């Protein structure tokens, strides 16, 4: 559904008649105009934004996603920036300010009050360079997934959908990052795009032809490196070249060149087990680069490395890519690390889970190399955190397709009670409220570890999240300051009030005269909603919570759950121990 006048607008843009384009846009409703602008390449957005009058810009600003408004505002001089912000409707301006993370907000305030020196702004302005990431929708994608879907057959014949119908295309000269929580189906999507897994429905096209009809030139860098431990570094890199039927001397030269480019000269005759993790992944990267793939797929390539090694390798990877030393047209990166995605990617896809679907698809028009402390960078990081912590916050992007889905079974976040308590205490010590990415940054925690805890704390009503901030609730404060037995009571009350699975288990056990049920019963219920692995994780989490809250106990030998009766205190518990 195209807005009226879209064709005329595109004509005007293609002829470079910016004023005419602005005039056309001004006739539209501001919300629709903002949507139309979001669809055109970023440089054109910049030019348009620069030529449009301040009044019109001020009406548009609140209709863009706030991170995008922030970036567009900073493409204009500081005077215009002030003028535009000044002309915004007060309520819209407040909302915009409210959405910004602390650093970005602080900088904007400085700029508006004149405390921000123009010299510094000069430097900041170069952060934004549309030329680096060219979203050129007109260019033909290298590969394209059309309505791909994946379901797995359960042992009992039920189908569990792990990936909902998804459209996805990868363009040349772009680093695309696929971001999502663990278990969201990122790796499955990567395997569908590379042809390792057949989609249940839909098709993957490679240069317009079905993937399995051609021999696509692609390579994967694996999380576990997947090197052959009995081959030397050189032989490992040569292996795929031999598979392409390349003669020995040519193979040798290419492998040496690839090893040289990742800084592994001198290690040719080493075996992988003699190398550190970072070095092993370099071999994995060299093996992939030696093939000169059109798209380089990277499946959590830095996740198995320690923080410093990963940082170093990321930097070197970007140096190669920006220096055009990589014979690769495009990179597709699967990661659960928000900073990593924001640091490397030109385009980010955020995946939601159960079943996986693309929740957001947006570009980061920041110049490389990116400064992870700059305000513009933090605006994006903050935005992604918000997206991932607030499932209801579907971004208002034109490219996202909302689908009607059946309401899924509420999932228990995989967090341990100890972790929840620790997080609440930490937040309490910091004044009861903080930005999520601050916590992650300071604890050197990855979002994978952090999100389940936040989700759990929110579910139990010990904390609430609001636009990327976490705040401890009164109940949470009570929980954090209680002694151990009281904590257990508070935890039990909260879990029984909010966690569906625990409620179900407790109620079923209470119905039985002996207060015992086989675990198999609950496993069957969960199997209807989750994959086999997820069911196991749900059960593990439920056991953890139930045991901590003394709601029920579990005997692994008989695979049975027992209601934890309140009169089972002191002596009777000791008796139980002795029997076991």
């Amino acid at each position, binding site marked *: 559904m195209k807005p009226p006048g879209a064709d005329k607008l595109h004509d005007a843009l293609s002829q470079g008649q910016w004023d005419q384009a602005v005039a056309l846009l001004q006739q539209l409703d501001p919300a629709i105009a903002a949507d139309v602008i979001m669809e055109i390449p970023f440089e054109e957005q910049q030019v348009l934004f620069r030529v449009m009058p301040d009044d019109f810009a001020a009406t548009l600003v609140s209709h863009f996603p706030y991170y995008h408004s922030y970036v567009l505002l900073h493409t204009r001089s500081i005077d215009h920036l002030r003028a535009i912000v000044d002309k915004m409707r007060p309520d819209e301006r407040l909302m915009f300010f409210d959405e910004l993370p602390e650093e970005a907000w602080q900088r904007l305030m400085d700029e508006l009050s004149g405390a921000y020196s123009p010299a510094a702004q000069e430097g900041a302005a170069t952060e934004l360079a549309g030329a680096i990431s060219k979203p050129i929708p007109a260019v033909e994608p290298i590969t394209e997934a059309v309505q791909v879907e994946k379901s797995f057959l359960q042992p009992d014949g039920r189908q569990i959908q792990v990936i909902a119908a998804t459209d996805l295309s990868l363009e040349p000269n772009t680093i695309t990052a696929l971001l999502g929580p663990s278990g969201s189906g990122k790796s499955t999507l990567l*395997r569908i795009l*590379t042809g*390792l897994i057949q989609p249940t429905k839909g098709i993957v096209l490679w240069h317009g032809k079905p993937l399995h009809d051609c*021999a696509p030139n*692609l*390579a*994967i860098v*694996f*999380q*576990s490196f*997947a090197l*052959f*431990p*009995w*081959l030397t570094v050189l032989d490992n890199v040569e*292996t*795929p070249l*031999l*598979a*392409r*039927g390349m*003669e*020995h001397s040519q193979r040798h030269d290419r492998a040496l060149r690839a090893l040289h480019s990742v800084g592994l000269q001198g290690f040719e005759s080493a*075996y*992988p*087990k*003699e190398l550190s993790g970072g070095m092993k992944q370099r071999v994995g990267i060299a*093996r992939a680069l030696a*093939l000169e793939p059109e798209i380089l797929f990277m499946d959590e390539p830095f996740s198995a490395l320690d923080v410093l090694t990963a940082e170093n390798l990321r930097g070197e990877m970007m140096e190669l890519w920006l220096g055009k030393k990589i014979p690769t047209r495009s990179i597709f990166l699967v990661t659960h690390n928000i900073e990593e995605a924001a640091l490397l990617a030109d385009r980010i896809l955020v995946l939601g889970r159960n079943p996986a679907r693309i929740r957001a698809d947006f570009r980061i028009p920041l110049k490389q190399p990116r400064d992870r402390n700059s305000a513009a960078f933090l605006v994006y990081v903050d935005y992604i955190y918000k997206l991932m912590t607030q499932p209801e916050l579907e971004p208002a992007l034109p490219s996202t397709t909302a689908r009607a889905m059946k309401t899924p079974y509420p999932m228990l976040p995989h967090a341990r009670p100890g972790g929840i308590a620790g997080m609440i205490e930490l937040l309490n010590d910091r004044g009861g409220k903080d930005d999520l990415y601050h916590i992650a940054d300071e604890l050197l925690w990855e979002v994978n570890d952090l999100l389940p805890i936040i989700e759990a704390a929110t579910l139990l009503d010990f904390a609430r999240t609001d636009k990327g901030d976490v705040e401890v609730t009164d109940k949470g404060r009570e929980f954090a300051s209680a002694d151990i037995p009281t904590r257990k009571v508070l935890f039990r009350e909260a879990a029984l009030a909010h966690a569906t699975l625990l409620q179900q288990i407790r109620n079923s056990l209470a119905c039985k005269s002996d207060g015992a049920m086989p675990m198999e019963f609950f496993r069957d219920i969960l199997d209807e909603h989750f994959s086999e692995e997820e069911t196991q994780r749900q059960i593990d989490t439920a056991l953890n919570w139930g045991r901590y809250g003394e709601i029920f106990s579990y005997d692994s030998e008989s695979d049975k759950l027992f209601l934890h009766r309140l009169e089972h205190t002191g002596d009777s518990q000791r008796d139980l121990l002795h029997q076991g």
Partner: protein
Amino acid sequence: MPPPPKTSSGVPPWGVFPTEAPSLLRDLPILIAGFALFYGLLTFARYGIGPVNTQAEIQLNPGALPKYAFFSVTRIAIAYFLSLAFTLVYGYVAAYNAKAERFMIPLLDILQSIPVLSFLPPVMMAMIALFPHSQLGAELGCIVLILTGQVWNMTFSFYSSLKSIPREMHEAAEIYRLSWWQRLWQMELPYAAIGLIWNSIMSVAGAWFFLMACEMFVLGNRDLRLPGLGSYLQTAANAGDTRAIVWGLGVMVAMIVLLDQVVWRPIIAWAEKFKFEQVEAAEPTSSPILDLLRRSKLIPLVARVTVQPAREALGLHFARAAALPRVRPRRGRFMPWVWRVLILAGLVATAYAAVRMGQMLASLSAAEVGGIVRGAGATFLRVEATLVLAGLWTIPVGVFVGMRPRLSAFVQPLAQIAASVPATALFPVVLLMLVRIGGGMGIGSMVLLLLGTQWYILFNVIAGASAIPTDLKEVCGVFRLGNVERWRKLFLPGIFPYLITGFITASGGAWNASIVAEYFHFQGKTLSTVGLGAVISHATDTGNFRVLLAATICMAAMVVTINRLVWRRLYGLASTKFKLEA
């Protein structure tokens, strides 16, 4: 000015010799060994195509022993390589073809539980019918018989290795489009190498164990004997010639030790590089022979002109063949048709065989059935009693040794040599002593079973005890646990997984060994006791196929049932509850 010749740099021209000569000297043993092997194979071939002589006179003078030893080793070697070929094909198909896997693996389980001697009549008949006029028939029969004793565990090992290749490694092979040839050599064989080597060692040890039964036996009215170490020992036992028994035993032990040093140790040391580990091992196995081969200049030279070009050419050939567009439609039409016919034929043949088998079993007399049932009961009790006896001495000793690293470093090699002596070869000596003190076959069979199986348990207990973490031992010390408590709370649970592994191997070995333990030709007489093994051996001797079939089915069924009902459950328990996590 031209650059000065290299010799003028102060080094005398003959300076090159000292580096060359020792290498030639080093290569000399390799060359001699090569020629000796060639001569030996010629001899064996000349004998193999010679006229039928299945009643060869076995000379008991020690001078004949080198020839016999060579013949036996050659038979075992040929059987081993045939086993390897079978293993690769069977394991590969079972691992990658889900449909085939469903019946290939249970079939393997059953085949594994059939004792060697039960294969004897069909194998021998088939081979002698194939080559009625040359020695080759009987020889091939003997070789296939040895094969049936060693192939199954190798196949299992290869299959489970293939199944456990990490998923990402498979994906790397697929995404980088490795041809099946390249996959085999760069991924599957290296990954399976270590398991395959250890199982090969066990298999060859098994071959030595059953050598006497395989080289000399009575089949109905035919008395077959093939020249070899096994038949030498058997003949010596029959004649009651103690001197010859000792000589034969000595040569056999010498051969086993020699093979260990010359073949297995270098291979184990070489296979270090196939360990699928991400960090370097602390103490790799060493082998002087491997060092000799590695220092040699001859072998790399030969490899450079033969193996390397061949490997390159083959690698490229298969890579290019894999890159060609596949001709799918033709295959699509052709294959299912052929498969359907083959499967149908297989089903018909199986049904026919099942009916005939049923008829044969139905014709068993009540006395025969009674004998089998009684034998099965007796052997069951005997095997379990042996396991208990073996456990009673190996668990305390194993724990004692395993807890003391220095002691176990000293005891382990000795125990390994003791374990490498095939119990069957010792059997005549044991019987001689038993007869002297008035014991009979009942005790004798237990002793043989014990001799054959106790080592599996001992080694596993030592390994288990040495794997118990020090901090747990210290906890026992800190809380002043008494000896009984220590055993209940730490040692027994700690060694449990290892103990179960040992018992599983020992139980399988004991059932299989009962056929040689319960029935023995000795000093011109046949000694036997009540047991399923004796029933099978006797049925083979007298050519009573009905009883042989029934007893074999009975034994296989019992072994499979005990494995499923007892050992597999205990193993499950061992790998969950009693697993010591680091």
